[in-house]
């Protein structure tokens, strides 16, 4: 075999190994999700079977039907939970994005005193695990009387998300050349117009991805929500999962069905925003 053929053969082997590696990695990542979807359609016996039943014997929509059939008939107030989750996640994301854009822009464009210390301080807040905050937050919230309200959770989630959105959006504004905003100002824009006409559209992908992350954090958060909510007034979907546990039993199938319901909006949102996440939009702005 000559050297070229050998190199070609090695390349072929490498690509096979590559594909096998990818398949294994994706299996590990996707299997839990697939298992949740499957479990939502199978009877409890099959879910709990040992050894596990890999191929489902019978599938039914019973868990979904039960979920919507109202309290008392095996259902949970899913509409209310969904509404709460949506209000809280969307509002907290919008606020976190607004603050993140203002903060990120300031960190990317302006020079001010103690800039790096403030930035570091913001990042340090991310090192505190959310659950560690739950007790102090609970005390403060109960004194303020905002336990079991949308406002309480929205505030907590904004605080949780703002450092992250600032950090992410700062990076994207840094990639937008300063010359562009200056050119816009010479072209007749105020600083405000230059931001909205030129810098905002160019940092759009970054802002969209910060939005997705903030939304998913709020949408999936459980630890704080389980402490700060009490009733259908403010309970979110992750807290609603607990409705499927009782003193002696856990309704795994119902829980998985609710989990699927939770995943769908998050997936849809990610797919919608994904196409806006195309980077490289700024190429061609400046030399190159």
């Amino acid at each position: 075999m000559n050297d070229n053929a050998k190199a070609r053969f090695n390349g072929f082997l490498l690509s096979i190994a590559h594909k096998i590696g990818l398949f294994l990695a994706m299996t590990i990542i996707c299997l839990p999700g697939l298992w949740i979807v499957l479990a939502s359609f199978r009877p409890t016996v099959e879910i709990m079977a040992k050894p596990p039943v890999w191929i489902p014997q019978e599938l039914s929509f019973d868990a979904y039907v039960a979920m919507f059939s109202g309290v008392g008939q095996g259902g949970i107030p899913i509409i209310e939970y969904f509404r709460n989750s949506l209000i809280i996640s969307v509002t907290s994301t919008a606020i976190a994005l607004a603050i993140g854009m203002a903060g990120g822009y300031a960190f990317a464009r302006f020079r001010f005193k103690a800039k790096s210390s403030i930035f570091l301080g913001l990042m340090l807040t991310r090192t505190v695990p959310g659950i560690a905050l739950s007790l102090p937050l609970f005390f403060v919230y109960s004194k303020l009387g905002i336990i079991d309200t949308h406002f309480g959770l929205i505030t907590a989630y904004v605080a949780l998300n703002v450092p992250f959105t600032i950090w992410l959006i700062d990076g994207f504004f840094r990639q937008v050349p300063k010359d562009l905003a200056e050119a816009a100002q010479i072209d007749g824009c105020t600083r405000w117009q230059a931001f909205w006409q030129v810098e905002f559209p160019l940092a759009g992908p970054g802002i969209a991805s910060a939005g997705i992350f903030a939304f998913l954090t709020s949408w999936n958060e459980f630890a704080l929500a389980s402490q700060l909510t009490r009733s259908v007034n403010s309970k979110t979907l992750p807290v609603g999962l607990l409705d499927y546990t009782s003193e002696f039993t856990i309704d795994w199938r119902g829980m998985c069905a609710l989990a699927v319901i939770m995943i769908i909006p998050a997936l849809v949102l990610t797919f919608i925003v994904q196409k806006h996440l195309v980077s490289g939009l700024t190429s061609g702005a400046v030399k190159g």
Partner: protein
Amino acid sequence: MATVSLEKLVKRYGSLDVVHGIDLEVADREFIALVGPSGCGKSTTLRMIAGLEPVSAGNIKIGGRVINDLPPRARNLAMVFQSYALYPHMTVRENMGFSLKIAGQKPEDIAPQVDEAARTLDLTHLLDRRPSQLSGGQRQRVAMGRAIVRNPDVFLFDEPLSNLDAKLRTQMRVEIKKLHAKVQSTVIYVTHDQVEAMTLADRIVIMRDGYIEQVGTPEDVFQRPNSKFVAGFIGSPPMNLKDADIADGQVVFANGDRLPLPARFRDRVTAGQKVTFGLRPDDLYPAGHGIHSGEDADVHRQDLRVILTEPLGNETLVFSDYAGAEWVGRMLNPRRLAPGEALSFCFDLSQAHLFDRESGRTLRG
């Protein structure tokens, strides 16, 4: 009337002055080039005129009106950036019409103005492309088109050609010159490339460390540099500048080699004075391969050994060793030279310069 005046203009960052109270008058429709090495304050000065940097002290006037504190949009300027600064999310058409759109003009009024500018710059076929689909030269033209559409009082150029390759740069230089002839606006052009400055500008402002070293026509700054710095900065290859002393009516170099004192400096120097002797490569050439501008008596002949040659086709740069230093000369109608070859060189002393060694100022009257 779009005259531009800088009066005692200062730029200060904290306690560091980067522009030290410069004065400059730019006439209406004049093309003026600011040149100097990196960090000389030329771009900062331009940005102050544009309103992108606040003025620390002094005044900027456009058409006699002080504009120090006006925002960029109120100064009626257009600027072409080194990076082009085209809006990547807009087409060429939108880029060029952007300023008119912001000014509140209707789309049907904007279109003819953009089309007109596009025709001027031969951009018509590119109007619907985005900047990322254009070559460097095309982007540069779009940036100029965006400036023209504004119909500004003053054009500002911030090293607009430095990202282009050498050939394109020459081509764009010609286009900028044509453009100025056509639009007849005042132009302030910042560059570190002295060839651009010499070829384009009516007057050149040479800056160094935040001061203006000399203002003059290209001929002025080339033939009558005020200082050693200007002499060394303008001209390519740069002027030969060698330290020497004046003794016995001669220029005496450190190793004892001597040249006759150029006639026009005879009354301007005293014995023992420490000077820097300057001679452009054009005025140092192998006998029979150059043109001397003065009397025959001003030409000093000297046998020198060739160290190295740089053939450029129509001429050859000849490096030789004299007075313990390397001198570069220019050989017209060149023939092939071998390193080590001894040649009779002509020093055209009527074109020589003498500078005070300490202050660097010219000793010419």
